[in-house]
């Protein structure tokens, strides 16, 4: 598996694969990411608004709480967990199927380093494209929050925007992006690992996928805790 991190055999082939993975890991995930983000942003805003029942807390808190939960936790972590299910299981089953049908042996016989050839482009692509997805997710979530306030009439646009600006620390964006990059690495390398070491048949490919999703999720949560401790405390 260490083999995966060597320099690619041929640059032009690597670039072509990278473009393909941007498409298959990134652009094809955009729809689900935006859908979930819009609704979650709206829901976060509504829940905060409904829970403020004392006039002592200003309604600008709605924008503030929505922003904090989206940027710090929801977009980087929850969306990454969703990508584990969408992208990680796909990587494991793709590589696992290649393993059990001897396609990986065929690569090796041709003198290609299969781990490097198959996994490195995916890791690289995800580490570049996932932060972009997360930025989109943040923007769309905050928009969702705004729309929910607007439609329900609970909070005015001015209050919501004021809340978004309240005590804004740009470092939180950096934190979100760093988390996302680490999670992207975990998703692609762990699921690549499980695919690559699949033995047997179709059933085993399914088992590997399940294991990959479970273990990646656990790692993401652990690293979430570690990174939060390191960067925010």
């Amino acid at each position: 598996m260490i083999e995966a991190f060597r320099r690619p055999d041929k640059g032009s082939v690597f670039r072509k694969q990278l473009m393909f993975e941007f498409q298959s890991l990134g652009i094809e995930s955009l729809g689900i990411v935006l859908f979930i983000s819009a609704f979650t942003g709206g829901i976060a805003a509504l829940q905060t608004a409904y829970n403020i029942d004392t006039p002592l807390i200003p309604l600008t808190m709605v924008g503030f709480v929505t922003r904090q939960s989206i940027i710090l936790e929801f977009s980087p972590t929850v969306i990454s967990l969703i990508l584990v299910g969408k992208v990680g299981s796909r990587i494991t089953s793709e590589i696992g199927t290649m393993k059990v049908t001897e396609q990986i042996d065929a690569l090796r016989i041709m003198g290609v380093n299969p781990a490097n050839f198959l996994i490195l482009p995916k890791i690289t692509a995800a580490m570049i494209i996932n932060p972009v997805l997360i930025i989109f997710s943040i923007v769309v979530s905050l928009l969702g929050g705004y729309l929910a306030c607007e439609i329900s009439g609970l909070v005015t646009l001015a209050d919501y925007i004021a809340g978004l600006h309240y005590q804004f620390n740009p470092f939180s964006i950096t934190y979100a992006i760093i988390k996302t990059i680490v999670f992207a690495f975990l998703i692609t390398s762990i699921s690549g690992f499980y695919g690559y070491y699949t033995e047997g048949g179709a059933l085993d490919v399914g088992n590997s996928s399940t294991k990959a999703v479970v273990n990646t999720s656990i790692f993401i949560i652990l690293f979430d805790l570690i990174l939060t401790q390191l960067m925010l405390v």
Partner: protein
Amino acid sequence: MIEARNISKAFGDHEVLKNVSTSFEKGQTNLIIGQSGSGKTVLMKCLVGLYTADSGEIAYDDQIFSEMTEKEKMVFRKEFGMLFQGGALFDSLSVEENIMFPLNMFTKQSFEEKRERVNFCLKRVNLENANKLYPSELSGGMIKRVAIARAISVNPKYLFCDEPNSGLDPRTAGVIDNLINEITEEYGMTTIINTHDMNSVLEIGEKIAFIHEGNLWWTGNKHEVLHSDNKELNDFIFASELTRRLKK
């Protein structure tokens, strides 16, 4: 020449290969024959290094392959072409892309040159105009033939074919046998074929190694194979009515 010296291989406590020593000649089609489950595929995978033998040595001409590092093996394998028993085509790539794959990885040819090579290889396996199909759209025999085309696309020095004509009709099987035989002579390749097809044995068996229960049981050529008094070999060769009649 490829040499296997005292190769043993076990999976758990199942001894599959027992101290097998044999050699495979350059410019000849070398056959490994034996019953299903006798260890032909395992022997071939040991030769190319997909399995590591528990003991023994593999030599290619004057180089000891089994002692090379994984990285050295990788470079050495650029001279290999291999047909897997199940084809092992890349299912995300079309027929043309499959055959072009090794050319893309290791040559600096222009697209036109590569395309020409692909068409040439496809023609030799009787599959003109299949360029754009995907593996899922091919029949079992077509998969085999595309896999052969892919194996020969880089003009390998060493060609390994695991049952190239199982699942093919007798006529196509003959075409494939002759193709492999021809290119082996033409380019002076060292070719090893696993087979239990009697037609192949009698047509192209210039050097035959018979594996019985993991042991190298008999070696000879297509003429000797008909007149041997080795019991297990005879049981294997003359298992069908047709071959028994042929003997008479």
